[in-house]
C-alpha cells in the first residue's frame, strides 16, 4: 500500500474513527450517554439532517452546491402540516411535492439557464422561505393529531424511531445508486471534470438535473419529518441547515469541489456533528461549564474548521483527494 492510498483511507474513514472516539468519550464521561433514551432521541432528531445531507452529498459530488435545502425543508414542513388532516399519504405527498417543485426550479436554473449553483439555489432559498411564511400566514401551523400523521416523526418501527429508519433506507438506496449505477458514477465524473465528462459523451445536464431534483425532494421529506416530529409546520425553521449539511458532507470525506465522495461516510458525518451537539448538552447538564447555544455554534464552527484544514493538509500533497474506492 503506497502512502497516497493510505492518505486516502485516512481521509475517508477518518470520520468513522473520529465518530467511534467521540462515542467512547461520551460513554466514559456521561452516565446516560449510551442509554436507550438518549441514543434513540439522537437518532430521531438527526434523521432530518441526515436526509438533507444525503441530497447535499450528491449535489456536492457533481461540483455544485444547494443552499436552498433549509428553507425548502421549512416549506415542506408547512405544506405537509396543512395537508396532514387528509392523512399520512397526503401529508407526505404535500411535503415531498413542495421539495420536488423547489428542486425542479433549481435544476432548471442550473442546467437550462446555466446559472451558477450558488446563485440559483440562493434565489430558491429566499423564494422558498418567503413561500413558507406566506403559506403559513407567518406562524407555526399545527398538524392534525387525528390522521396519524405524527407517526412519521414520533412513531417507532419495532424499537427504532421511524424517521431514523426512513433515513437509513434513503442512505442504503443512495449508496447503491452511487456505487452500482451509471447515474452514480456519472455524478462523480461530472464533479471530477464537467467538460471532460461532456466530451466523454456522458449526459451531464441530465444527471445534474437529477441531483438537484433529488436534493429538493429529500429536503421536502426532511420537512415532513420536522412537522410530524414537532407537531407543527415551522416556516422559520431550517435556518443554517444547509451549512450543517455541507459540514456533514465535508466531514464525511467528500471533496467540496466534487469528484470524490461517499454516501455512508456522509451519514457518519451527520452523526458526528449530532453527537458533538449531544455531548455539549451533557456537558451543560454536568454543570461544570455553562454553554449557551451560541457557544455551541462557535464550537461546532471551530470543529468544522479543523476538519477542513486537516482535509486540505492531506489533499494538498497531491492536489486532489485520492479516491480509495472505485466501486467494489
Amino acid at each position, binding site marked *: 500500500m503506497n502512502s497516497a492510498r493510505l492518505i486516502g483511507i485516512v481521509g475517508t474513514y477518518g470520520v468513522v474513527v473520529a465518530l467511534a472516539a467521540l462515542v467512547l468519550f461520551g460513554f466514559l464521561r456521561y452516565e446516560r450517554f449510551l442509554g436507550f433514551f438518549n441514543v434513540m432521541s439522537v437518532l430521531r432528531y438527526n434523521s432530518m439532517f441526515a436526509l438533507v445531507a444525503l441530497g447535499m452529498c450528491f449535489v456536492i459530488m457533481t461540483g455544485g452546491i444547494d443552499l436552498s435545502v433549509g428553507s425548502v425543508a421549512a416549506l415542506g414542513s408547512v405544506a405537509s402540516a396543512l395537508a396532514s388532516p387528509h392523512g399520512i399519504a397526503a401529508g407526505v405527498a404535500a411535503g415531498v411535492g413542495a421539495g420536488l417543485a423547489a428542486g425542479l426550479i433549481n435544476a432548471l436554473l442550473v442546467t437550462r439557464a446555466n446559472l451558477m449553483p450558488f446563485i440559483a439555489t440562493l434565489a430558491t432559498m429566499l423564494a422558498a422561505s418567503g413561500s413558507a411564511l406566506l403559506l403559513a400566514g407567518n406562524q407555526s401551523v399545527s398538524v392534525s393529531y387525528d390522521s396519524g400523521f405524527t407517526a412519521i416523526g414520533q412513531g417507532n418501527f419495532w424499537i427504532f424511531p421511524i424517521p431514523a429508519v426512513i433515513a437509513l433506507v434513503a442512505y442504503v438506496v443512495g449508496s447503491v445508486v452511487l456505487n452500482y449505477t451509471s447515474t452514480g458514477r456519472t455524478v462523480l465524473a461530472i464533479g471530477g471534470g464537467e467538460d471532460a465528462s461532456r466530451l466523454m459523451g456522458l449526459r451531464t445536464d441530465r444527471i445534474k438535473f437529477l441531483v438537484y431534483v433529488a436534493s429538493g425532494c429529500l429536503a421536502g421529506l426532511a420537512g415532513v419529518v420536522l412537522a410530524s416530529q414537532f407537531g407543527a409546520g415551522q416556516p422559520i425553521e431550517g435556518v443554517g441547515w444547509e451549512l450543517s449539511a455541507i459540514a456533514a458532507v465535508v466531514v464525511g470525506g467528500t471533496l467540496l469541489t466534487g469528484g470524490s465522495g461517499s454516501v455512508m461516510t456522509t451519514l457518519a458525518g451527520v452523526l458526528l456533528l449530532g453527537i458533538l451537539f449531544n455531548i455539549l448538552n451533557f456537558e451543560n447538564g454536568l454543570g461544570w461549564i455553562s454553554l449557551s447555544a451560541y457557544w455551541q455554534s462557535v464550537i461546532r464552527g471551530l470543529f468544522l474548521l479543523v476538519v477542513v484544514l486537516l482535509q486540505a493538509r492531506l489533499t494538498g500533497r*497531491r492536489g486532489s483527494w485520492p479516491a480509495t474506492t472505485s466501486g467494489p
Partner: protein
Amino acid sequence: MITQPDQAALLLDMRDIQKRFAGIPALAGASLQVLPGEVHALIGQNGGGKSTLIKVLTGYHRRDGGQVLFEQRPFEVGSPHEAQVSGISTIYQEINLVPLRSVTENICLGREKRRRGLLDWSAMHAEAERLLSRFSIRIDVRRPLGDFNTATQQMVAIARAIGFSARLVIMDEPTSSLDEREVSVLFSVVRQLKAEGVSVLFVSHKLDELYEVCDRVTIMRDGHTVRSAAMSDIGKLELVAAMLGRDVAVVDGHATAFGARDRSRIGDVLFTAQGLSAGQSVRNVTFDVRRGEIASFAGLLGAGRTETARLVFGADRLKAGEMTMERASYHPERAADAIAAGMGFCTEDRKAEGIVPEMTVAENITLALLPKISRNGILNEDRQREIVARFIRDLGIKCSGPNQKVRELSGGNQQKVLLARWLAMNPKLLILDEPTRGIDVGAKGEIQRLILKLADDGLGVLMISSEIEEVMEGADRIFVLREGVSVAELEGQAANVEDVLAAMAHGGSPVEAAA
C-alpha cells in the same frame, strides 16, 4: 488543388463547413473526406481550424453552414454522446478524462456492464484490463487515473475511444505526450484498427509520424482546406509550405513592417542557453541573444518554442542544460528570478496570462511595478501617473485615458499595454510569444515597428512567431526548432525562406547556418 476520391466510397464527407465565434470566422469553407479503413492526417498551423472542425464533427460545436455525410447519410449530431453512438469516437488533444475517477470508470462510463440492473464491477474491470492489454499495459484499473503518468492516461483515453467499436476514431495529437516506445505501440494499434476496417483521423505536427502511419492528408489554413492528397504524392517541404501558406517557389517582397536593420547596433552577447532540456517537448535547445538583437524561434507547432521560452523565464523546471545572463550563470527557480535578472515575457495567451480586462490601462501598466512605486505600501500616485503617461505616449496606446478599462481596447492596444507593463520594469531581455496574433493588420505593423525600435534602443528580443514572414523579415538571427531540438541557426533577413522551411521539415538545412 483538392483531389476528390470516389464519392460513393467515402466514410465521411464534410463540405464547405462554416463556423463563426462571436462573428469571427473559425471555419470558412472547410472540407474533409475520409475513406473507410484509411488513416487520414489532418494538419495545419495553430488557428488553422483543425480543432474546430473536429468539434463540429463530434457535435461539440454546432456548425453555421455546410453539409456532413457519414456513411452516405446526412450526419446531424448535437453532442459528443450522439457522435459516439453514431460511430465516431474522439481522443482530444488535452486528455479529457477525469483524473479523480478510476481507470475502469474512465474507460467504461457511457457503456457500463450491468447485471440485474446494477453495475457489474468485475466485468467492467475485466473489460478495462482487456482493452488496455491491446497496448501491452498492465495496471491496477481500480486506482484513480490521476495516479498514472501522462502516457498511460493517453493510452487509457485511446482504450476508451476504441472500446466504443467506432467506425471513425479521431486522434487529436495523440503522440504529444508519448515516448518513442509508446508511440510505436500506438502506431501498431492504429494499424490494427485500420486492418479491422476502422478509419482513423490523425492530427499531429510531427511530420515524420504522418509519413509513417498515414495514407492521405488534408491541410487546413485560416479556417479552410487548402489541399488534400495522398501522403506519397506530397513531399515534406510542400506540406510545410502549404501549411504556412507560403509558395516555395515564390519569395515575395516585404509583408511586414520590419524594415532593414542597422546591424551595427547589435552589441555583445546578453543571454546564452546551452543544451536545454525538460522532457518530451524540449530535448536539446541551444541559442543566444545579443544586446539590441531580435532573435527568433522558427518551428512548427509542437516544436518546443513556447516551452523553451518558459524554461528561460523560470516558469517550468529545467532538467538539463546551462544558461547565462550577462555572462553570469543563471538558474531561475521561478518567474520572479527571471524578472530580477532583467527579463520580461509577453505570453502567447494575452487574455489568460496577461492583461486584467476589468482593470484600467494605468493599473495594468503598473501592476508588476507597484512595489517599486510604493512606499510603506502606499502607492505614489504621481509617479504612477508619470510612468503611465510616458508609455501611453511612447507606445502610442490608443485609449480615452489612463482610466479606461483595458477590456474596451482593441487587441493591438491591449498588446501594447502588456508590452508597456514589461518595459516599465526596464528589462534587458524581452521574450515575445506571438506578439501579433489576433491583431488586425494595421496594428500589427505598429507592434512590429515598436519591437524594432526597442531593439535599436539596446533591448535584446527573443521573438516567437508562427508567421513565417515575421520571422524572416524581423529577426536578425533565426533558430529553427524541430521536435524540441534546435536544428539550425540562420542569419535573418539574408536567409532564404526555403532554407527555413527545409529545416522545419527535415531537421537539417541544405545550406547550413550562414555564419
